């Protein structure tokens, strides 16, 4: 299915480019309020109309993409940085105490939905974008640990690993030199999936006020603000939602496409 890869890659790249472009150019200034021109319909000047403060919707969506992408990406980085070494270690010491501790730790984190982690962090430190990154990052960690461990375990039984052991390489060196490069494909696919999950979770967190704080525009916050106006200005809720759906769909297709392209036998692991 080359189609998935191309379509998913294009959609993802499009959003990434729009987010990057928003740093240097947006059709209109998102900080400029123009109450007189509020809730304007789509026009040549405002492609997607304006919101309740007269801000250009297209520009808001471009700037909003930054937060969604940044948070989800940072959370994937967090989860990989912690989860992959833990998974490698557990596989290297399979059946031992370290393995047991990592796996039980996984079970523990799995018992906390990311929203509940965010609630706990917010109760202690107050709401912020960093909390959203931390909450989604913690949620991602056991996913990467489990995928890494599972894939690494099957590699440890192979002959070339045995050869490396006979050659006197230690557990850590084998993990870094032989195991990690061979599970990189799998990790890339999983990272794409967690990226998509992160976008949805971030939108939810911002929507309930646990993520990006005003005045930072984010897709989730735009949805929260549009809720009371949905009966007379449904497009305010429509566009940010469509942005989320398109971005997530793109990432999921990209994940499927990458999986098929990198290894047809690979089965999708969805946490």
């Amino acid at each position, binding site marked *: 299915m080359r189609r998935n890869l191309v379509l998913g890659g294009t959609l993802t790249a499009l959003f990434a480019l729009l987010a990057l472009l928003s740093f240097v150019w947006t059709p209109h200034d998102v900080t400029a309020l123009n109450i007189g021109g509020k809730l304007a319909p789509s026009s040549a000047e405002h492609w997607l109309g304006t919101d309740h403060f007269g801000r250009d919707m297209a520009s808001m969506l471009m700037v909003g993409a930054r937060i969604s992408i940044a948070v989800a990406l940072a959370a994937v980085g967090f989860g990989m940085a912690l989860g992959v070494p833990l998974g490698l270690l557990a596989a290297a010491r399979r059946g031992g105490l370290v393995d047991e501790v990592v796996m*039980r730790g996984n079970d523990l984190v799995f018992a906390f939905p990311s929203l*509940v982690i965010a609630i706990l*962090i917010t109760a*202690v430190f107050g709401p912020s974008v960093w909390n959203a990154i931390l909450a989604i990052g913690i949620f991602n960690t056991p996913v990467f640990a489990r995928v890494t461990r599972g894939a690494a375990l099957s590699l440890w039984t192979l002959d070339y690993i045995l050869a490396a052991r006979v050659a006197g390489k230690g557990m850590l060196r084998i993990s870094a030199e032989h195991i990690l490069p061979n599970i990189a494909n799998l990790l890339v696919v999983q990272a794409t999936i967690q990226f998509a999950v992160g976008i949805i979770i971030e*939108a*939810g967190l911002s929507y*309930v006020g646990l993520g990006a704080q005003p005045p930072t525009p984010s897709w989730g916050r735009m949805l929260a603000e549009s809720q009371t106006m949905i009966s007379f200005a449904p497009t305010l809720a429509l566009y940010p939602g469509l942005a989320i759906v398109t971005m997530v769909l793109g990432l999921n297709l990209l994940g499927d496409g990458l999986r098929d392209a990198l290894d047809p036998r690979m089965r999708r692991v969805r946490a």
Partner: protein
Amino acid sequence: MTRYLLTRIASLLATLLAASLVIFALLEVVPGDVAAVMLGLNAAPEAVAALRDQLGLDAPLVTRYVTWITGFFTGDLGTSYTYRVPVAELIAARLWVSLPLAIYALALSTVIAIPIGLIAAMRTGRPADSAIMGVTQLGIAVPNFWFAMFLVLIFAIQLRWFPAGGFSGWDKGLWEGLRSLTLPALALAVQQASIMARVTRSATLETLDQDYIRTARAKGLSRTQTVLRHALRNAMIPVLTILGLQFSFLLAGAIIIENVFYLPGLGRLIFQALTQNDLIVVKSVVMLLVFAIVLVNFVVDLAYAAVDPRLRARA
């Protein structure tokens, strides 16, 4: 089976113990003086001292932890600072909204997902399959709270079939109660059903490759009979696992959805408590949610072992 059960129970208790310690440490140890946090920056020292006394915060940490956990099982969770009623009472009242909502959503997703997944598996590669795969791919990408907003716009504001929010209460009859939970449950079900339909499809496809399916066909069963009697039953194992895994997403989704529909459930309670710094309420509601997730996964594991004897032997 006994040995399997015992190891599972031990791991269940260990997870719960660890989870409760994490929650307790985060909400009672990290903030320092809980009473000061709850009352805010401008609180009078006497008020803080009084609250400390009321919450028993001067007792040693171990005593406080033990009191909380035993209270969790005896139903004494202290008194909410903002609501001035026992926390257990608050939670019990809210459970009557959240629990039916979760069950309703789960039932809806199962009823939608399994037939759809089966149809896709039986029509694999045909237009029906492609359509189902496309729709479910979309369903996974749709944030439930956004979908909920448009359900409200169409079915509550324009068609007026269902209330736009709030909960009528069960005392007005089952139907009225269900009516206020229908849109929220539907919003929650979309993503769940999409994932479950895809898992049902792939699990069924996998069982259709098995020898016993060919045997069943060879002895004269029709394709539909074979799928319903043999394939579906075996395909239910992965579906069950996903159901367990998805339960925590369902709960998290319900917390957000309750806020979209102003439903007086646990999700709204936890947010109200959060904005009012009522850590006592936050602590116990979070513990209850985690308890529910761990318990559901435990039950799924057991169901799993009951369905598939191979898993019992392995443990």
